[in-house]
């Protein structure tokens, strides 16, 4: 996955969010927070799991707690894949 650029990572993350949180694609931007998309704690767990699986990475709980926006998730994936 190391060859994925920012845009490709963002698009993958966005498609997971759209699927799991039931939001529209145009409501998902880098600065959008998961809270603003009405994600509850179980949604976040499921989302992290999907990101781990999609990008072949491990996201420890301490790191997951800091991923509050789409952008921070994209940055984390970029730095760790």
């Amino acid at each position, binding site marked *: 996955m190391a060859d994925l650029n920012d845009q490709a990572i963002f698009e993958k993350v966005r498609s997971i969010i759209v699927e*799991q*949180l*039931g939001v529209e694609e145009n409501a998902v931007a880098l600065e959008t927070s998961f809270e603003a998309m*009405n994600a509850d704690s*179980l949604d976040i*767990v*499921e989302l992290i*799991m999907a990101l781990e*699986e999609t990008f072949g990475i491990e996201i420890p709980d301490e790191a997951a707690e800091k991923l509050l926006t789409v952008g921070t998730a994209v940055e984390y994936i970029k730095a760790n894949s």
Partner: protein
Amino acid sequence: MLPESKQRVVITGLGVLSPVGIGKEAYWKALLRGQSGIDRLTRFDSSLYDSKIAGEVKDFVPEQFLDRKEIRRTDRFAQFGVAAAKLAVGDAALELGEEDPENIGVVIGSGIGGIETLCEQHSVLLNKGPNRISPFFIPMIISNMAAGQIAICLGPKGPNFTVVTACASGANAIGEAYLMLRRGAAEVILAGGTETPIVPVAMAGFCSMKAMSTSNDEPQRASRPFDKNRDGFVISEGAGVLVLETLGHASARGARVYGEVAGYGCTADGYHISAPEPEGTEAARAIRIALEDAGISPDRVDYINAHGTSTELNDKIETMAIKKVFGDHAYKVPVSSIKSMIGHSLGAAGALEAIACALSVSTDWVPPTINYEQPDPECDLDYVPNQARQCPVRVAVSNSFGFGGHNAVLVIKKFEG
């Protein structure tokens, strides 16, 4: 047995998801036509299973009842429950926004709960390990979640719980709701049952019990309650929810009334995990208790909606139980099993059958037992063979019996002011 109470309980709304249709109009029309909803099983590849037929709810579109996010976090059985509740509330013209949510309860039966999700997630556990189990797994499978989700979607804040008595769950749920309304614990209760058991492991389990019909070549003729050549039940899925109200509440809002829940009896066989007690003693006693509760003598019953599963034992022993209670009148009262058309939806069955009784007392029509061809000397009552019948129905009795020896009986009578 019951505390004295002045509250009468009436049925004002009906919500149905069944193999013969969604919504009470489609359901009742199909039942009176004698239409079968049984077909080749399509929800998974059943080629290795002894029974390859089922009553599936084919046109269910969850998006019509739930938003995308709710759909992802609910098992099919809870989706069915929410859908049936919404249909029932709509049918009752009950404006939930204008009601006090604390006065509205929800009691929904389910025999098994979210077994489809259980199977999917167990595969995940085996294939991907424990760290890949969905955080929604537990809330999706627990049997109470249909009742919980109905309150989440519709807002009622009154008594809310689930009854689990296998194939009697739906009837017990309605009975318990009726008791709560009588004693003033709520003004309105959405009561019924939901079940979606057409998944490989459940199917395999019932096949292993040799409880299911293997008449795979003629799906629509496979469920044949009381017929001499019956060879087991046909599994099906569905949900039924009734809006039950105290008469005072229904009158105050000018609600249309289908009928009155007049009596409820429940007993236990205390005999065997799956087989009914051979004399039908406790099943008969449940019928008697329900009639006494209603203050109605057995000879005044106009219709019996039988449990009638199409298994060798149930149909024979249920017939014995009916004779014990009704004596000579047993041979005069029409007895029918709509499982001949919709199959056996386990925890939903009692609710779907109570809905049929409500429609019987409100329309004076009795649905038939289809596929009745060869009389069985041990089943010698009037099973309303193959053709619906128009006749006065003032009092209907609905029998439900569940694995574990649970007997639940409801008396539903015509509403007469």
